[in-house]
């Protein structure tokens, strides 16, 4: 019981501390020149986090499926991948969450320059995030299958990647 209380106190302390970290960033948003550099950097953080979180994870899944399909000789590789699957999944979830929040902060701070590409990107990112949360935290079998199928849809991944590229190209002009 006391251990739980200490944990809660520590979490509350971290939340309070985060309120001290985030406001300086938000405060810069009122100052035009500096704010735009910061907010642009937040966007690059989101893009970087997305690439680092997803490329190795997708590659690992593809290799695992391939090794399972090809059979005996490559079974050892599949077993090795299975042992590191959980940490890589956690890494994928954590970095994607950070990328999502960095991206959303970037979008909210630049909401006066809102265009259709940014709005579409925000919608697709939110759909991917919600399906991921559904996949991770729901206990119902149907919701889990729904989340799994939706989260792993190749079309949505391609749409997200192309919107990110379009957003970067349009934003740079």
């Amino acid at each position, binding site marked *: 019981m006391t251990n739980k209380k200490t*944990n809660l106190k*520590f*979490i509350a302390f*971290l939340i309070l*501390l*985060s309120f001290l*970290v*985030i406001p*300086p*960033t938000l405060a*810069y948003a009122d100052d035009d*020149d*500096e704010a735009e*550099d*910061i*907010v642009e*950097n*937040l966007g690059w*953080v989101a893009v970087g*986090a997305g690439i680092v979180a997803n490329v190795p994870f997708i590659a690992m899944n593809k290799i695992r499926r391939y090794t399972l399909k090809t059979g005996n000789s490559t079974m050892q590789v599949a077993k090795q991948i299975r042992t590191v699957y959980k940490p890589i999944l956690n890494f994928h979830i*954590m970095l994607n*969450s*950070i990328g999502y*929040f*960095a991206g959303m902060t970037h979008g909210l701070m630049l909401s006066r*320059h*809102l*265009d*259709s*590409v*940014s*709005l*579409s990107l925000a*919608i*697709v990112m939110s*759909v991917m995030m919600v399906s991921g949360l559904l996949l991770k935290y729901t206990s119902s079998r*149907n919701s889990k*299958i*729904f989340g799994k*199928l*939706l989260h792993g*849809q190749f*079309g*949505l991944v391609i*749409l997200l990647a192309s*919107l990110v590229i*379009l957003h970067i190209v*349009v*934003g740079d*002009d």
Partner: protein
Amino acid sequence: MKLISIVFVLFVMVSVVYIIPVAYAEEDDDEDDREGFGEMKREREHQDEGIPIGTDVGNVILYGTIAAIGVSVAYTAFKITSSKRKSSSKS
């Protein structure tokens, strides 16, 4: 304890995410000291950027994205219901 360590790592990473852009932006403070006409030009540049909502291309992108999401959700739901129907007809 596990929850604490996850929250702590998350906190550190979120802090890094928010601090790095601020620190990086402070370094090149002096690079962009445009005033007067330069500032007006900059404002105009911002007004021109992007594909605004309501234009033809903008609408195509936005409604295309919403339609693509709708189609994938419907396809997923269809896949689940069809597999359920198959399994119930087998039993």
